[in-house]
């Protein structure tokens, strides 16, 4: 055994000691209190059968970036965000990562507490955790979100569904032994016994295999990667709010569902036979999630995104079809005068 070997062990041992000494300085009550200050209650669209109008978010920057799950709650121009101390802000959607069903919203607040979102290592099975979330909407105003305790029971790929649709994210998740699958919990923070953020509670999903409701969280590395990609535009699903001239996709042969809501999701109602869309195999019930790589959350957004294309630009549509994401190429955007004059069937 060399001197160097023992010295390295010694150094490691002290490092470990320091970590645990510093960890034991804070009580779990303090860690929950500290963590909860960085968790927000979100209120948006919904409130109908089985669709809650509230969820949870995690503050991840001093500039007011919040990570949460991509859901119908965010399908509103009026997303309200309430901090632990009762401060209330109107939040704006900054971007989404449809594959991880992750969204980033922003608030214009000052002196915001936040978790540093780093692509840290995953925690081991058996790690004790606290889950902090806006479950059942029981906390309002300056009331603190709910804390639950549990253990990471497994780290496995997510095989889950919502209704008949398979969840798009199929990477690893932490399976938890506590019931975190409750209304309002999605977007909640998973912290360890040192108070570090280790994951985010996922959407309310059932196991594809057994049909039981899954208690799980997106691990920190996936969360951080998704966040970084949304902010850098790498995910190419960043929304922009500047709409030029709206262009309805009917000229491509796509009839969207009627525009009934504030943000009607852009589902394809029907396809005009022999149209460009029909040739490119766009199908009824497809959900358009991106046009030319830009995320589209509503019918209006689809029209806006098409309107921004120049003649000759490729018309690339991304749709969700039976739980899978499908990219479709509809060829270059034709000149206005040469576009097919298509009318929907009566």
């Amino acid at each position, binding site marked *: 055994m060399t001197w160097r070997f023992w010295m390295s062990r010694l150094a490691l041992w002290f490092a470990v000691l320091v970590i645990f000494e510093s*960890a034991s300085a804070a009580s779990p*009550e303090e860690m929950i209190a500290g963590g909860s200050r960085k968790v927000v209650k979100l209120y948006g669209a919904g409130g109908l059968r089985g669709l809650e109008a509230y969820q949870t978010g995690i503050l991840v920057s001093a500039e007011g970036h919040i990570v949460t799950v991509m859901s119908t709650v965010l399908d509103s121009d009026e997303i309200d965000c309430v901090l632990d101390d009762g401060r209330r802000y109107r939040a704006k959607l900054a971007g989404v990562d449809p594959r991880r069903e992750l969204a980033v919203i922003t608030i214009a607040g000052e002196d915001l507490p936040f978790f540093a979102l780093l692509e840290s290592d995953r925690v081991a099975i058996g790690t004790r955790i606290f889950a902090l979330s806006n479950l059942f909407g029981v906390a309002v105003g300056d*009331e603190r979100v*709910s804390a639950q305790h549990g253990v990471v029971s497994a780290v496995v790929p997510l095989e889950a569904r919502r209704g008949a649709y398979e969840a798009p994210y199929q990477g690893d998740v932490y399976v938890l032994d506590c019931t975190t699958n409750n209304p309002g919990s999605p977007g909640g923070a998973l912290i360890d016994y040192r108070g570090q953020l280790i994951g985010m509670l996922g959407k309310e999903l059932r196991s594809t295999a057994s049909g039981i409701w899954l208690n799980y969280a997106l691990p920190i590395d996936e969360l951080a990667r998704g966040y970084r990609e949304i902010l850098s535009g790498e995910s190419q699903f960043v929304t922009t709010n500047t709409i030029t001239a709206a262009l309805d996709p009917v000229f491509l042969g796509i009839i969207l569902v009627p525009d009934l809501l504030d943000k009607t999701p852009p589902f394809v109602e029907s396809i005009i036979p022999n149209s460009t869309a029909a040739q490119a195999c766009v199908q009824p019930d497809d959900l358009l999630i991106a046009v030319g790589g830009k995320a589209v959350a509503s019918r209006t957004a689809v029209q806006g995104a098409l309107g921004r294309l120049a003649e000759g630009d490729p018309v690339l549509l991304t749709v969700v079809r039976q739980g899978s994401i499908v990219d479709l190429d509809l060829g270059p955007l034709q000149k206005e005068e040469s576009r097919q004059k298509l009318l929907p069937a009566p």
Partner: protein
Amino acid sequence: MLGMQRYFETIVSLARLGLCLLFAAPFLHATSQSADDLDAVLELQQRRSNTIRIASQTAVAIFAGEAGGGSGVLISPDGYALTNFHVVQPAGLAMKCGLSDGRVYDAILVGLDPTGDVSLIKLVGRTDFPFAELADSDLVEVGDFCFTAGNPFLLATDFQPSISAGIVSGTHRYQFPAGTILEYADCLQVDAAINPGNSGGALFDANGRVIGVNGRASFEKRGRVNVGVGYAISANQLRNFLGFLKSGQLIDHATLGATVATSADGRVVVSNILETCDAYRRGLRYDDEIVSLADRSVRTVNAFKNILGTLPAGWRVPLVYRRSGRRVEIVVRLVGVHATGELAAIVSGGDRPAENRSEPNREKSEEPQKSPPIHGTPPAAMLPESLRGLYEERSGFANHYYNAVERTRVADQIATRGMFKDHDGPWIFTGRLANDERFRIELSNTSGIIDLPTGTTKVDATGDLDANLSPPGSGGMLAALLLWRRLLREGPVTLGRTTYWGTIPLSQAALGRPAQPLLADVLEASVAAVECRFTVDQQGGVMGVELWPSSDADPCEVRFIKPFSNDLPEMPQIIEVQHGNERFGVFHVESAVLGIMDADTKNGSVENTLDGDPRVGSGGDL
């Protein structure tokens, strides 16, 4: 908190232990360190087992035959146990209760708080029941270790309670009334499993003290099984209501007589106020901003409801409001939420909470299914042998028998402070007012007379007292003092229609705080056309009298301050009289002479003077 801290330290210790073993070879001292840690862990484990074992002895498994059952917790050696209203409601007057000693005890209903979903029962057959203490639930923090001992799914057929452990998930939660009535205000939220059947059982802290009574859970898509979200009625709310529960009454919750709403700029403001309520008479008006209630700050409507929901009707609490930037402090008397007879109708099943009603936050409360009403179902004659004589029916009461028990207890306590029975002659008090002018009060069997710098007034003690509220402006000071003399001389039973009313905080600082045992007993008497309430402290000292000539007017409030110590019988040193917003006067007593109409001399008396030297002798006049 301590428990969770230790629990946490254990985890860290275990982690360190593992690492120590890993690095054991080069560092011998690490091995001894790990041994210490292991001992600490084992000791902690042992302590927790002991705490749970001791707490389990206080758990009550309540069986109500076909009507179901639930849980309860013993809180006194003579068998008082807390449970939920919704557990007792289907059970009726009498219950079979199993304890962890394997024995079954008969229990009788004592008091009901339907709005708070609480009821008090009494197990009979022992005077040495194991019991748990109520903790100060305001000291509970999110993250604290907690556990329950109860009878989920009625599994405890051998009466051994099921234990579930977890952490406190939230404090000061407000849960909307389920159906029409059961409201959980300022409750504790826990992730320890609370399932149907856990209702009425205790939520314990790491030291085995009761921080709440479980009774409700959030259910949603999985049916009526726990999803990590249960609620417990806080120990501090229970403490506020305990005296009322022991009074055998159907207890009502409080309203301010005003509703509040959040204004556009986020303040909590009065949105509606009844002109007949006490708060209005104290000066509260529409659009005033509520700053605090009962010394707790009000920042949301939920917070307001939380505070109000833990307070019994009839309590007076401080309220701070702001109007045009000016901060005003008042003390308001809370009134009952329900009209006369309304609670009785609810209890007897006339107005049953709706089943599975969707709540604003999609809650479904844990409530009994269709159940028989309490009143009329098991007539007293059908009670088991052991419970005979422990029930007395009276309108407005769950069980009037226990009211008489409490009334007797308080009367006995008053009697320990001095025997006034023989002092049937005039009681004469002389002294100085705040402005140093002199006063003289004479109370006798026939009249009350007061000499003040402003003149002399007299009240006939033999007739109705509501017609003469002398001296003017006092609201009935002489009448109140005459009734006080009668209470001390005759005791509560012959005074009039006297009941044990419940408890009130003796000082405002005592609100919900167990640290200071300052809840005082209150006797209520309907006598000589007036209503009056006597406040009696833990030592049997009568601390005050409130007299109402009518229910919607301000009472005359008489407070006795600093009674003479060590002297029997005791007389007050200072008498304060308040009427509405006005302080009528502060009377500094320099001499108190309690006359005795002796058959021979007619002039025997006991005199107390300020120096505390009691003299028994003749010559009562000053």
